[in-house]
Every structure is written in C-alpha cells, then in structure tokens.
C-alpha cells in the first residue's frame, strides 16, 4: 500500500496544488512517492526532495514532455505504477491534474474521483456535487484510487524536513498524436488568485474591463489578488483565468470582497468557503448578500474608490 503524488510545475516552480496533494497523501497514511515529469525539472525536483513525508522521488525528464501533454504524461505515470503498484495516485484538482489523472484511471480500468474535499478512510472520500449544493461521501471499490484534490480543503505540506533523493525514470514518449504549441499566460505582479489571502472580485456591475482599474487599486491596498464572476469574463471584461466559480477557480481566502457580483450559485460554489465575505452591490436583494458576512448596499463606483482611499 503506497501513494503516488503527481507533481505539477511551471517555469521551474512547484505548484502549491502539489503540496496540498502531499497533505492528502499523508491523510491516506501510506508511504509517499512523488513523481515529477517535464522537459526541465531539476529545480522542481530539488524543491520536492525537501518536502517532509515524501520517501521516494521519481524524475522523468524528456524534451518531449514540454507542455505536459496528457498523451505523453499519462504513459510516464503508468510506467511508474507498473513498477511500484501504488494503491493511490493523487494530484491537485488543477487544469493539469484534471486532464491527466482521468486518462491514467481509464488505462487502469478504474473510476477516478475528482476534486475531493475530504478523506474519511483510505477508500472513503468526500466531494461536492451540483456546484457545491450537495456533499457526497463515497466509497471507492477499485483496487487503485485515482484522486484529484481541492487545494482549499488541504493545507499545503511544508517544504522542509524531507530528504528523498531524485531517481531518474526513463519512459519512451510517444510524440505522434499531439503537439504542444505554446501558452499565453496572464502576467500580474499581484498575488496569485488560488493562493492569495485576500481577493477582490468584480462582476457584471463593473460595466466594462476598464472599470476593473477601480478593483486593481483596491487590491493593491489590500495586497489582494483580483478575480471575476463568470458574467464579467463572458462579457469580455477580463480574461478566463480570473474566473471564480464552479467551473473557474475554487478559492477560500481570508477575505473575499465581491464587487458588483449578484451571486449566482455557480459563483458561490467558488468562494463560499472564504473566511470573511464582503459584498458591495447596489441591489439589496442580490443573492450574494445571503452569504456575505458584511454587506454594503451602495453604488460601487462611489464605494470602492472611497474604500481604497480610506484603507
């Protein structure tokens, strides 16, 4: 009985979702092996070797793994599984984890379990369904449990106390079926949305992308990340990676300030576990006020600049 944690990384940096996956693996309770695959992962491997609780570290480095295409990464994970016969395979519930792990599960002929929020026993897991409107507890009977874990439900493991030495894993990578072309990543000096302690989010009430400038100013005062509702992304005000909600990012910061957001259930699914929720909206009947700890019924174009100035 042992667990494989699949590391995720970009620009030679380990993604925090991986550390949440390590915490989940610790809760499962078996020995933990971590695997990192990529075109260049020496730096990430060095970081991973420091993570406490990881007893083995596999490194699959190959130029063909650039962009981490699922058709190429899945065979690497399957090769590791063939060698060590893991009982659990775990990754963060990120775009990467969600792309690769179901592919691995299908090859093993088992049902993956997505986006878990709790572990009750090595075979019993908790997850949300219907956009967080119901909580399901389930028992997985398959021999191998393939899980993606929600970052907000598992504290990131400490990057200290570990001493696993990187061991190379060589796998023949099939390069035929797909090709990685490139990424256009949004650049920002502000904290990253999924790990920020404070988040300021805007909705349709902002009326335009230019008006998000008001939120950026407030965010700078609060050292906050900036998010958006689906309505604001669909309207083209801001880019998709800023979307908070059922199908966007699921976050749980200490402080969440919802500005001009009505509070559709799909949005609430992405932020209702925040510790303190503030809502600023001119419509007193907006559903966002039902989850807000502090609600201010006001014109955001007056209230937000005033708040920025007074903080």
């Amino acid at each position: 009985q042992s667990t494989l944690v699949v590391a995720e990384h970009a620009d030679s940096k380990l993604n925090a979702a991986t550390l949440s996956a390590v915490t989940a693996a610790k809760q499962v309770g078996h020995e933990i092996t971590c695997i990192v695959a990529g075109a260049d992962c020496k730096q990430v491997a060095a970081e991973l070797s420091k993570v406490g609780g990881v007893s083995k570290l596999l490194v699959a480095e190959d130029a063909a793994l650039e962009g981490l295409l699922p058709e190429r990464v899945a065979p690497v994970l399957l090769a590791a599984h063939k060698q060590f016969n893991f009982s659990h395979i775990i990754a963060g519930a990120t775009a990467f984890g969600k792309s690769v792990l179901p592919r691995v599960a299908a090859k093993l002929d088992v049902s993956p379990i997505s986006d878990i929020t709790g572990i009750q026993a090595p075979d019993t897991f908790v997850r949300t369904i219907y956009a967080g409107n119901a909580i399901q507890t389930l028992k997985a009977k398959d021999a191998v449990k393939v899980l993606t874990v929600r970052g907000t439900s598992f504290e990131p493991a400490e990057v200290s106390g570990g001493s696993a030495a990187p061991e190379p894993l060589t796998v023949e990578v099939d390069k035929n079926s797909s090709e990685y072309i490139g990424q256009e990543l949004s650049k920002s000096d502000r904290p990253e949305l999924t790990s920020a302690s404070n988040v300021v989010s805007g909705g349709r009430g902002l009326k335009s992308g230019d008006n998000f400038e008001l939120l950026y100013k407030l965010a700078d005062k609060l050292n906050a990340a900036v998010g958006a509702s689906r309505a604001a992304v669909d309207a083209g005000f801001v880019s998709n990676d800023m979307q908070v909600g059922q199908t966007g990012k699921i976050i749980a910061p200490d402080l969440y300030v919802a500005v001009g957001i009505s509070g559709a259930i799909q949005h609430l699914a992405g932020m209702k576990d925040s510790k303190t929720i503030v809502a600023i909206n001119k419509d007193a009947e907006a559903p966002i006020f039902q989850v807000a700890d502090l609600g201010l019924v006001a014109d955001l174009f007056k209230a937000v600049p005033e708040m920025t100035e007074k903080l």
Partner: protein
Amino acid sequence: MRILVGVKRVIDYAVKVRVRPDKKGVVTDGVKHSMNPFDEIAVEEAIRLKEKKIAKEVVALSIGPTQAQETLRTALAMGADSAIHVEVPAGELERVQPLHVSRIISKLATEGKFDLVMVGKQAIDDDCNQTAQMTAAMLDWPQATFASKVEKDGDYLKVTREIDGGLETIKVGVPAVISADLRLNEPRYATLPNIMKAKKKPIKKMKASELGVDLTPTIEVISVEDPPVRAAGIKVDDVDTLIAKLKEAGRV
C-alpha cells in the same frame, strides 16, 4: 469527418437542488431537466464544424432513461443529423459512472468509425470532468480538453484550451476527443421549423449490454447531504463602518 457528440440530461442549471430524505441522492422527480450546458456548447461546435464543411455528419448520443430522447431531440433541432439513445432505466442511472459512459462512447466511436468525439468538459450534476479524458484514453486518441477555440490546421485540429494561468494552444491529430469549455461558442436556439424537422430525424435505440458494456458500479454512495449553511451576516450603512468591522475582525 464524422462527429459523435455526447449529451447528458441533467437537472436544469436554474433549479435549486434538494437532497432526498434517504440521503443517497437529490430529488429528481418532477424537477425540470435540460441538456447539460457544456454539452450544448459541444453540440453547437460540432454543428459549426459541419457548416464550415470540416465535418460531414454529426451524430448525437445520450445515455439515460426514456426522457433522454427529449435531450436528443434538442440536439437534432440544433442541427445534428441523427441520434443514438443508449437506454438506462431511471433507477439504475444514478450508479452509472463516467467510466461506464466512456466505455459506451468509445465502443460507439469505434463501431461507427467516428473521427471526432465531442462532449462538454463536465456535467453540472456530478461535476466529475472525466468523460472526455477517459474516452480518449480508451480509444488511444489524443485529447483536447477545456477547448475555447477549435480550428482546422492541415490534417490537425488546432485547439486553444482554458488553463489555470490563461490559455494554451495545442495541435491534435484526428481522430481525437475534444471537451468544450464555456467560451467556445454561444449555442443557438432551435427554431420552430427545426424543432418540427427534428421530429423526423432518426434516433437509434440500444442497450449498454448490446455494446458489451457492464454497468456494475465501482463506487458506492454512502451519503448525500446539504452543505453547511453560512451564519447570516450583517448589512453595514457606509464604507466607514465596513472598514471598522473589517479592522475589528483583523482582516485589514
């Protein structure tokens, strides 16, 4: 190119779901259902590929009880050419997992010599986000999940994907599996003449057993419960009070 597009009948997105008294699922009887919104986007994209002459034929597939045919009629009214209904009785439906669905889709894709399978990135009932990836694995085809743009590029499809940090572009060879994300397109409404025409389009009925797919569940649902309710908050009158309360709570 022939496209097989999967459509799931789910509780309508605007319905507030209620947990059943037996705590094993949610109330579905007498509740409005419609096509999973992400699948609607997949159907729309498949039809657009046909309109651009990239695809020749679009076949819609649904797995579910008799009412799944209503969902298929919607896909046919949007412009799909024909449909396949894999019948699963309502009582058994809850136990069907994406693993089973993927097996059915991959069998049909092979038998029907399809070149492209399209589905929504997730269903809004179980929120699993697995079917496209698993179908691709079973078929040994490449996958392009969370697509926000699909273009033809020689023998390949160039797909823009929504990822956590922004957008990613990949090329996949055909045959392939694509899953649709929110911003791929805006699905059309079926017009009355097209709804009438859809009634005459063929729906082929079959059972999972005829495809050799065993629907024995590997997951047991122990309980389904309401989420914890957040304690009611307060309304403040002005920005000064808001900031004072936030300071009190140690948040600013």
